[in-house]
């Protein structure tokens, strides 16, 4: 029946799969050219190849990969420069050794990864499954599975490919395809053995949330969609046996198409770091050029006359200057640190491991640890300014619970009655054991059968709904609210058993009663209520109605009792952010009903505006209602959501909730998860719509967005603001400008373009459009909280990119479902909630964990630590390289601008100074996790990026310059015309080198000790170890033995022992170290005393208790419990499909769960 839609997309269906016909897929028309004349079937086999290298290609390919990085190329260039004899100032090994070490470490890492992939591939390709071959199911390896094969899967099997589900009803190979149609559902009973269906569907793609195809069988076309598919990477659970037809195999599967092609995200620090490396490089060139000029002049003035320096080359002074420029580029190359990138990677890897290892982000119920799926973004977690969160499944569990009720003015399960023992339902064989209710008195009341109102209350709940039920008494509700209500009634002894097109059967106490359903007045968002008109077994006609308090109260009869008390109870419920519904009834006389029935029939056949006509008819009968009571349903939040949100808000992180829900629901959730608080002024998008256009239209054209002066606040009232907007309103702002669209199209050719049709018809120029967007973002960002309801996945992503674009802020998206994928991919950091059914969000996320509340720890603890560590590391790394390199610079002034060398250069970054700073990058904690969580303000420096920016960079630079000056000039002064204690002149070059190098090692290691705020034995060991290694290696290199073996390479023989037995030189070292460190201590102390940062305050008051978190008193609000989708009323009344939900299918949906990526692809 719905062929039209399928035919429309038929054009793009280039993928044809024929069941049980392997030869078909080898036909020439399905061949594609692979290489020159070699042709291959376009259908991949099911063997996968995720490894990159084999034994032969490893070295060339890996080297090629590594030399794609600029830093490595730079060092290769240096190496080449060093080979030129006229230029070389350092022996070739000074660059080669670090380069080889760096390349080696990376290569080893790659090799280990690749070996793991090899092993994994092998294991996966050799997994067993059962394939239908020659009419029988035979065991086959995964790699032998081909497109078109029918496979049989058992419980707990991994799904070997993307397969079309053919479920099994009995073991003798009879299958049926379950189509997604609600109507037209009749299981096609096929014989799997003879199945010859031809499937046409879209080509393999990476969209996990989409699949369109048709199945041609018996000359009939059947539409297929994602629900029919079982994707590779999932696991069958709870279902004993099922069958499937392989549609995409191996590399064509959606999971494989998804792998590896993730958009490359970079952190702010990354960018900053790159710019700084460029800055350093520019500095290096400048310094080298300056020294080269110096050399030119020096040679002109002195060098040319110094006969002893005659080198017989006869170069002119400027030529020498030119050569010395390159020489200095080589010598000073340590300014651009080769080990920086490798170290940063190591640190990030460590941080990611720590995230994976964190027990406090491990969700025991589902056995899911947190997972950092990318290892490159950790420090960005410490800089988040905006969080975009999905609601359902992320903030809430999408579980509704019947919490409380008020019946005839009496409230049950009120908080005042503190009963902690849930009601025992063992008396009721239908009871849902999961259902918990706290008030025993209500059960007693209902069971006693004395309270008519209570009985009516639950009778209404069991009758007035659109829930459907299957054989196993599993309810299928259009909205979880209804499910909760019907389940509640069931537990209280009013069991909804069955429904047909026009009867509803319930069990009341011991008897089963059937009610004739005369009319079903379904819910819609305008009516905010639903009613049902029933003929009781005794012939009475009664209307039951449930709906939002606002609409119900308008329609209550004047005689209705308990309105006051119910209203009070409703307010109380609303304050507890429960979703409320009022229940009422009305007795209708037969005559009245017949009159109405006629009008109803007429309205049903009206052609124009039928809905409005029906609404009017409904309105007629839904009046003079008698109130019974009200229900209160809790939209169950995930654990710890309000606390987390409050914490994050305190850390100045703005939280936007983007949801497909309707406004009221979203607002209600906003309150219940303390995103909205009572001291907030709530604005609605529709109300402020005009603001941007009226007050701010007059903006000079020249002002570019982003560079504008800080705009006047939109909200003049002081205090917190919150904004609630809807998707429709957003649409006006979000649809893209033509010019930008064109650019977009150029940029990502082939991607689907956003639908763009200006709805309001206003002609808008680009500037105005952009201005609107800027206004919107400015306005929204002024609010503490923003809730966007009724937004599509596309809009979610657009909102995120708007904020990214105009606020230049670091954004994080968190979601759990396929509709959040766009948003997760768009944001700087995407977080997926794992352990749920779907895996799409997790697959496209950067971090995944099981509970929203872990976000707090991820950001406030791990993010903050990562950021602080990375900043500390980078600052120190730059400092130590400056301090080291610039000593050469100063020395140049006294050595005729000629550059010098020794082994020290080679080993400095590798051995002597890297370990302690690496450990700081891995382990440092300025305050521990508990304090980080207790004082969210500690998060602010990350958002402001105040720990690592150009200012810090230049501070590091100047610190480095200062230290290098000290390191050079103190020994210089001490050495100038002095003698050793035994009369030998110690002022030789080698002793000087030993003194400066030792000072440097002491300073660098002590400085990192000063910067270390978390001293573990590892740090201690590293600092002491570095110094020890330095002396060890130095004495080794300066030893007699090594000189005897390699006289030409180790020429510092005896320098260390000669120099370091002189107390004078030790005193020089002590003074040098003292002068370098004392001012730093002094400045740190003073700045901490005068301008203490939050962190300092926290640290110094570690013992004090934090003030307890206080919650504001909630104001009166009302909410109501209909969630967003319309009920099944149409279906019920049309009678087309009162159908049994096939158990196999339902079981499967719940039983597919994500298994860790690596294990199953």
């Amino acid at each position, binding site marked *: 029946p719905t062929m039209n839609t399928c035919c429309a997309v038929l054009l793009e269906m280039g993928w044809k799969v024929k069941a049980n016909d392997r030869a078909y897929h080898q036909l020439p028309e399905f061949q594609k050219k692979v290489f020159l004349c070699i042709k291959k079937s376009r259908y991949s086999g099911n063997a996968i190849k995720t490894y990159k290298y084999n034994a032969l290609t490893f070295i060339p390919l890996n080297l090629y990969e590594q030399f794609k990085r600029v830093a490595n190329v730079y060092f290769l260039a240096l190496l080449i420069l060093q080979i030129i004899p006229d230029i070389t100032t350092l022996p070739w090994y000074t660059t080669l050794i670090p380069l080889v070490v760096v390349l080696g470490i990376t290569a080893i890492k790659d090799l280990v990864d690749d070996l793991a992939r090899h092993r994994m591939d092998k294991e996966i390709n050799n997994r067993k499954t059962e394939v239908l071959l020659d009419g029988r199911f035979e065991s086959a390896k995964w790699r032998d599975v081909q497109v078109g094969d029918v496979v049989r899967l058992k419980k707990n099997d991994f799904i070997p490919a993307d397969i079309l589900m053919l479920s099994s009803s009995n073991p003798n190979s009879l299958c049926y395809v379950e189509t997604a149609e609600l109507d037209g559902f009749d299981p096609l009973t096929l014989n799997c053995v003879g199945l010859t269906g031809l499937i046409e569907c879209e080509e393999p793609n990476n969209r996990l949330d989409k699949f369109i195809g048709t199945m041609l069988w018996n000359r009939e076309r059947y539409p297929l969609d994602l629900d029919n598919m079982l994707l590779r990477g999932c696991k069958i659970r709870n279902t004993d046996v099922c069958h499937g037809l392989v549609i995409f195999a191996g590399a064509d599967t959606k999971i494989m198409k998804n792998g590896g092609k993730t958009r490359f995200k970079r952190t702010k620090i990354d960018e900053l770091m790159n710019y700084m490396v460029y800055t350093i490089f520019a500095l290096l060139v400048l310094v080298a050029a300056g020294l080269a000029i110096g050399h030119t002049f020096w040679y002109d003035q002195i060098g040319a006359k110094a006969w002893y320096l005659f080198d017989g080359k006869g170069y002119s002074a400027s030529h020498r200057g030119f050569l010395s420029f390159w020489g200095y580029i080589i010598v000073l190359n340590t300014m651009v640190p080769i080990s920086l990138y490798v170290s940063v990677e190591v640190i990030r890897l460590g941080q990611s491991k720590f995230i994976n290892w964190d027990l406090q982000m491990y969700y025991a119920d589902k056995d899911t640890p947190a997972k950092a799926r990318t290892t490159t973004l950790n420090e960005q977690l410490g800089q988040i300014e905006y969080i975009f969160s999905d609601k359902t499944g992320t903030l809430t569990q999408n579980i509704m619970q019947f919490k409380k009720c008020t019946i005839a003015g009496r409230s049950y399960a009120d908080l005042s009655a503190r009963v902690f023992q849930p009601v025992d339902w063992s008396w009721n064989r239908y009871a849902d054991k999961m259902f918990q209710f706290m008030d025993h008195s209500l059960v007693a009341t209902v069971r006693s059968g004395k309270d008519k109102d209570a009985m009516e209350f639950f009778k209404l709940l069991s009758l007035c709904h659109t829930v459907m039920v299957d054989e196993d008494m599993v309810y299928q509700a259009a909205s979880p609210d209804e499910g909760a209500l019907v389940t509640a009634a069931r537990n209280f002894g009013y069991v909804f058993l069955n429904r047909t097109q026009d009867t509803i059967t319930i069990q009341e106490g011991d008897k089963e009663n059937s009610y004739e359903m005369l009319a079903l007045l379904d819910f819609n968002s305008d009516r905010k209520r639903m009613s049902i008109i029933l003929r009781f077994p005794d012939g009475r006609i009664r209307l039951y109605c449930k709906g939002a308090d606002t609409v119900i109260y308008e329609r209550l009869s004047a005689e209705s009792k308990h309105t006051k008390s119910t209203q009070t109870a409703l307010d109380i419920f609303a304050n507890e952010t429960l979703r409320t519904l009022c229940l009422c009834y009305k007795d209708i006389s037969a005559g009245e009903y017949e009159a109405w029935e006629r009008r109803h029939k007429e309205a049903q056949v009206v052609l124009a505006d039928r809905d409005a006509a029906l609404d009017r008819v409904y309105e007629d009968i839904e009046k003079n209602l008698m109130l019974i009571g009200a229900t209160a349903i809790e939209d169950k939040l995930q654990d710890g959501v309000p606390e987390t949100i409050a914490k994050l808000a305190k850390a100045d992180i703005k939280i936007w909730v983007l949801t497909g829900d309707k406004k009221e629901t979203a607002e209600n959730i906003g309150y219940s998860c303390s995103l909205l608080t009572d001291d907030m002024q709530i604005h609605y998008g529709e109300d402020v719509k005009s603001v941007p256009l009226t007050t701010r239209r007059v903006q000079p054209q020249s002002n570019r967005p982003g560079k504008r002066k800080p705009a006047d606040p939109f909200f003049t009232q002081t205090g917190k603001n919150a904004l609630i907007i809807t998707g429709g309103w957003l649409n006006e702002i979000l649809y893209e400008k033509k010019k930008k669209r064109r650019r977009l199209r150029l940029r990502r050719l082939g991607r689907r373009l956003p639908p763009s049709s200006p709805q309001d018809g206003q002609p808008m120029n680009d500037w105005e459009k952009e201005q609107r967007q800027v206004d919107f973002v400015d306005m929204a960002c002024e609010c503490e909280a923003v809730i966007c309801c009724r937004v599509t996945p596309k809009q979610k992503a657009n909102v995120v990119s708007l904020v990214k674009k105009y606020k230049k802020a670091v954004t994080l998206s968190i979601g759990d479902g396929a509709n959040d994928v766009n948003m997760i991919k768009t944001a700087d950091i995407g977080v997926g909630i794992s352990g749920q059914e779907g895996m799409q969000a997790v697959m496209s996320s950067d971090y995944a964990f099981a509970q929203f509340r872990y976000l707090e720890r991820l950001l406030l603890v791990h993010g903050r630590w990562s950021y602080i560590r990375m900043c500390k590391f980078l600052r120190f790394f730059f400092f130590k390289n400056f301090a080291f390199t610039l000593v050469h610079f100063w020395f140049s002034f006294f050595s005729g601008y*000629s550059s010098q060398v020794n082994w020290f250069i080679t080993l400095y970054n590798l051995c002597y100074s890297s370990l302690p700073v690496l450990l700081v990058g891995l382990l440092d904690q300025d305050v521990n996790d508990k304090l980080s969580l207790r004082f969210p303000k500690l998060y602010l420096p990350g958002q402001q990026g105040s720990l690592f920016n150009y200012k810090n960079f230049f501070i590091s630079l100047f610190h480095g310059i200062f230290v290098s000056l000290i390191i050079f000039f103190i020994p210089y002064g001490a050495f100038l015309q002095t003698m050793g204690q035994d*009369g030998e*002149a110690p002022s030789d070059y080698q002793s000087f080198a030993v003194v400066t190098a030792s000072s440097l090692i002491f300073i660098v290691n002590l400085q990192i000790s000063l910067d270390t705020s978390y001293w573990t034995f590892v740090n201690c060991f590293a600092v002491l170890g570095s110094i020890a290694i330095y002396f060890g290696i130095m004495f080794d290199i300066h030893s007699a033995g090594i000189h005897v073996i390699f006289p*030409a390479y180790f020429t510092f023989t005896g320098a260390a022992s000669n120099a370091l037995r002189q107390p004078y030189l030790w005193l020089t070292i002590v003074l040098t170290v003292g002068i370098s460190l004392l001012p730093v201590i002094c400045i*740190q*102390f003073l700045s901490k005393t005068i301008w203490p940062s939050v962190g300092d305050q926290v640290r110094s008051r570690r013992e004090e208790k934090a003030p307890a978190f206080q919650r504001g008193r909630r104001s009166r609000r009302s909410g109501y419990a209909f969630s967003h989708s319309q009920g099944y009323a149409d279906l019920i009344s049309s009678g087309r499909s009162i159908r049994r939900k096939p158990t196999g299918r339902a079981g499967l949906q719940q039983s597919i769960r994500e298994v860790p990526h690596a294990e199953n692809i």
Partner: protein
Amino acid sequence: MQKKENQEVENRPDNTAFTQQRLPAWQPILSAGIVIPLFVLVGLAFIGIGVALFVTSRNLHVLEMDYTGVEKTSPCFSCSDPIKQKNCKCSLSFELDKLFEGPVFFYYGLTNYFQNQRAYGVSKDYNQLSGDLDYFTFFFSIVPDSTCKPYRYDVNNKPIVPCGSLANSMFNDTFNLYQMKNGVKEEVPLDGKGISWWTDYNIKYRNPSVNPLRNAFNGTVKPLYWSKPAYELDPTDTANNGFINQDFLVWMRRSALPNFRKLYRRITDGLPAGNYSLEISYNYPVIAFDGKKKVAFSNVSWMGGKNEFLGIAYLVIGSLCLVMSVVMLIIYHWRNSSPDAN
């Protein structure tokens, strides 16, 4: 069931202090209670060291004389152009009014002399200098080391031993010191033994084990600027020749800075008060590059030779530490007592 439970927790991370980042740690804070006493202590210690250094340095004597002969009045003026004046000798007179306590060290010094130039400094063949005879011969232009250029081969392609600029430019002025006793010149004994580093003498530089030494040098030529071959550097002591000649060793240990002194001889007993005459055989040309030649007599202490820089630096830094500790104390108090302090 047991198995299932095990499965359920298979992904559970390890609960160790390391993985949970709970390693026992010490978190030091730069609090006033640490910093200010630290500065006081460091200040006092530095002042102490400074005083000791300063006093020691004050008690040392240094007598330094320039003999370049740039000025016409200088006794060596006539020798200052060594190209014209071969084997020129001049003498420098000086008077000591009190005893120069021994041991007195006798240095020669050069200024504006860039022994620390890279190309110059590396211009030597370490293998040759460690006595490896393979490096004494011309061998396919591989030995001696190419860094020795242009002092590698002579015009006849005979290898120069020792090769390289550094050896070639060895300082070759010689000095004799006389005390004038009642008008009679009495030579002061100069001790030239052990003036170089022990490691240089015993390990780094070695003569080839050929006896007599001169045979090892067959087929080689002496450095172009040298008047005597390496094996004849010290005619008085045959053991003090070749690469382990003390003066050669001292020269080869190049200086860090362009103005430097090198140890020439030791005067073990010190110099009594009186008049002295230093006879210089003036060979080394320095005027061309505006260099200066000096001689210096100095005695040493535990801290080496006279140099007041370090003592003064210690005193200054020590005092600054004390001053800063007071400043920090004041600021700390002001901060903690002011009402708006947070």
